[in-house]
């Protein structure tokens, strides 16, 4: 009976996992496949990807032709349920009214969390990314290096399925043979960016995304992932066969009913449930980690959202993976005589060093791509190529005015027409109507190229979250208050993105839409808006200056772990999801081993 209610809960769970996304999903998967009895608490509702995913609906089927609204900010068909920048009844606050000092917090209240709508971009951190302080004196080193996490990156890639290629580029790790699936053929616009980017020294190569470009090798991978565990191998092999390869249609952000992309609900939870070792309670809004006199975690309190009842579940180990800021919120709200400032906060660092990704976008229109013969450019439902950061040498020589790098994500192609496809053409045609507008729409369709810079933010003392002294959510749980400030490293990086994108657009013979914003303070997207927030409970080697150790285990409470993005000690330009999963797998291995040795 995998989906349970507070009434049907068992009493003897080994591990309670809060959250069902990338971190919670991976933690529960690893533990359950090893036979560890896990209870997962998910704040949102259950979600059936097979029945609920809009796979072939066109925008004409949707209200408002699918355009975004405050209820569905990324468009009607975005997979997010009960989420967004504002979740009804679940406010958060900002300490400052000043522009540029706001943090926007995207949440999803559903099984699988934000993995249902994510971009599927799955990049490994490189060796430099774990030792940034050693390299340039800024931020913090991780207590682990790339070599510690590499075996887990291998395992995660094999489990979830990631397409990409090995290019041997600096600080952009290659994967061992057998980890990656073949990348899809590049679209014509992406090829043009590649061709013209090369003239500027910008390397454009296959991106890594968690999409099955062919079925997973169900015969050999399970034995590599679960050596000596035949039951786990059998379960995983069967589940891998139940996942279809991509059929080259419909955007991944809608979710994928055939399970061709990674979503926790498509990859982690089905085999974990099949193991019989995982129970899940949905609509369980966790708010407190309960501790005993000895300072050990004994359980988690949550609100059953179906009836407003407060419940307590107990277990030998507690793992928080509620998303970086939500996990921090739970810990800060877990106050007792023994932990007056919240559990795991003896360092005073809980909530500190929240980081997002530096984001800045620019688009252009490319005459070479006008009026092309119709052809299918749906592809793998997202980018096929990207540009990893390429100016490490210039940075090392002190030629750059900011410290860390960014990668470039591309948007091109003859996508399914949406509200924006033939809108706002005035900047190109001066404002036409009638037959001429139809001629213009055909001409410009598919001739645009969009560039999104995604860069590293350095942790700083001014960017953190804490408990708001007065505001509570609809269940009476105190909410988070955010403090935010970019440093010049980030704003200058954003300006560099704009300059670079304009150069690439011009090198493609195109015209920039609007103009490149060279004032970085205006070019940078608001904090939180890239939805890569990490930190808040950073890992380190010094209990005075960090919240967890290298195994995501809190220094203060030995049987309490955090396996979402909160333990990140830095936020490399690489999208955090793959690293969250690799860290979670490593932490879960550690938990399983310690449980076996009866040390937890």
């Amino acid at each position, binding site marked *: 009976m995998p989906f349970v209610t507070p009434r049907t809960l068992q009493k003897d769970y080994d591990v309670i996992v809060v959250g069902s996304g990338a971190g919670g999903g991976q933690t529960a998967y690893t533990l359950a496949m090893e036979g560890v009895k896990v209870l997962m608490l998910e704040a949102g509702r259950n979600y059936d990807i097979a029945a*609920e*995913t*809009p796979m*072939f*609906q*066109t*925008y*004409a*089927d949707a*209200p*408002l*032709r*699918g*355009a975004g*609204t*405050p*209820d*569905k900010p990324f468009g*009607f068909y975005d997979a997010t*349920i009960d989420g967004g920048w504002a979740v*009804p009844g679940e406010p958060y606050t900002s300490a400052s009214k000043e522009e540029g000092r706001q943090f926007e917090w995207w949440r999803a209240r559903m099984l699988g969390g934000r993995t249902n709508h994510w971009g599927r971009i799955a990049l490994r951190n490189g060796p430099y990314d774990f030792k940034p302080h050693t390299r340039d004196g800024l931020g913090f080193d991780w207590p682990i290096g790339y070599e510690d996490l590499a075996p887990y990156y291998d395992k995660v890639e094999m489990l979830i399925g990631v397409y990409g290629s090995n290019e041997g580029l600096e600080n952009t790790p290659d994967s061992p043979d057998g980890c990656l699936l073949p990348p*899809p*053929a*590049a*679209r014509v616009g992406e090829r*043009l960016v590649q*061709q013209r980017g090369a003239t500027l020294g910008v390397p454009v190569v296959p991106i890594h995304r968690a999409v099955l470009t062919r079925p997973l090798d169900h015969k050999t991978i399970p034995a590599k992932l679960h050596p000596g565990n035949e039951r786990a191998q059998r379960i995983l092999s069967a589940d891998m066969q139940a996942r279809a390869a*991509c*059929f*080259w*249609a*419909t955007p991944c952000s*809608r979710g994928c009913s055939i399970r061709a992309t990674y979503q926790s609900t498509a990859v982690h939870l089905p085999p974990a449930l099949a193991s019989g070792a995982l129970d899940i309670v949905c609509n369980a809004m966790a708010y407190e980690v309960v501790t005993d006199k000895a300072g050990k975690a004994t359980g988690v309190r949550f609100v059953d959202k179906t009836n407003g009842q407060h419940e307590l579940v107990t277990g030998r180990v507690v793992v928080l993976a509620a998303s970086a800021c939500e996990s921090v919120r739970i810990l800060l709200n877990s106050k007792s005589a023994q932990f007056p400032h919240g559990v795991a906060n003896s360092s005073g660092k809980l909530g500190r060093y929240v980081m997002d990704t530096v984001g800045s976008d620019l688009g252009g229109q490319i005459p*070479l791509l006008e009026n*092309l*013969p*119709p*052809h*299918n450019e*749906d592809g*793998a439902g997202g980018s096929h190529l990207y540009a990893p950061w390429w100016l490490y040498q210039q940075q090392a020589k002190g030629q750059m005015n900011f410290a860390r790098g960014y990668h470039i994500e591309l948007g091109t192609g*003859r*996508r*399914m027409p*949406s*509200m*924006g*496809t*033939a809108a706002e053409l*005035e*900047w190109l045609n*001066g*404002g036409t*109507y*009638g037959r001429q*507008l*139809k001629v213009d*729409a*055909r001409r410009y*369709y598919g001739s645009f190229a969009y560039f999104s810079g995604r860069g590293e933010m350095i942790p700083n003392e001014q960017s953190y979250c804490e408990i708001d002294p007065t505001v509570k959510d609809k269940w009476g749980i105190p909410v988070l208050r955010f403090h935010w400030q970019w440093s010049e490293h980030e704003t200058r990086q954003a300006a560099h993105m704009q300059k670079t994108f304009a150069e690439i657009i011009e090198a493609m013979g195109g015209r920039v839409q609007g103009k490149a914003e060279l004032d970085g303070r205006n070019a940078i997207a608001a904090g939180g808006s890239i939805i890569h927030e990490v930190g808040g409970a950073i890992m380190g080697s010094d209990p005075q200056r960090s919240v967890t150790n290298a195994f995501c285990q809190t220094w203060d409470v030995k049987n309490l772990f955090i396996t979402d993005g909160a333990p990140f000690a830095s936020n490399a330009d690489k999208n955090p999801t793959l690293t969250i999963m690799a860290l979670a797998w490593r932490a879960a291995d550690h938990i399983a081993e310690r449980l076996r040795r009866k040390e937890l």
Partner: protein
Amino acid sequence: MPMQRRESLQWMLAAATLPAWSPTGAAVPKARATGYGTDPNLVKTYRAGELWPLTFSERQRRCAEVLCAVIIPADEHSPSAAELQVHQFIDEWVSAPYPDHVKDKALIVQGLAWMDAEAGRRFRKPFAETSAEQQHAVCDDICSVAAKTSPRFARPAQFFARFRDLTAGGFYTSPQGMKDLGFVGNTPSETFDGPPAEVLKIVGIRPV
């Protein structure tokens, strides 16, 4: 300043003249509808008017329909936006309870009133009853980027640009509109082969 005031006065007068033709004219429904919420059914097909009450009066609907046909007329590739009922989609759009849509409603409802008032002033008829030539005469004055900064037509030009975007959005998301643009995706296939050699040749890229 005087020009600006005159422009806005004219805009308001246009809206104010509407009730003479249509008593229910520019009236904005007071009932506050709610949106579709944060957990709508994503796999069903929705119809205009299903989620919130529509706004247009019969006169506004006629004006919007004719304007849709003027902005996207039928040609050898596809029907007109009016034939595809895009005006009904625009009604759905301006009737939605979200802040941007509420703003659009004010602009569109006033703009449609202006179209009728302007047609009435020039041709003594509501816009929907004017000839194609007369319709073009009005639209030519407000369709361009330049019109947006003209003292006389700034606000109507702003309306026209928005109405055009909504018309194009409604039209090109329809099956006929998608076909017109040459969209050929949203269909499952065994392989993804990338761009045809012909396409790469046009753009000047060597095949892999």
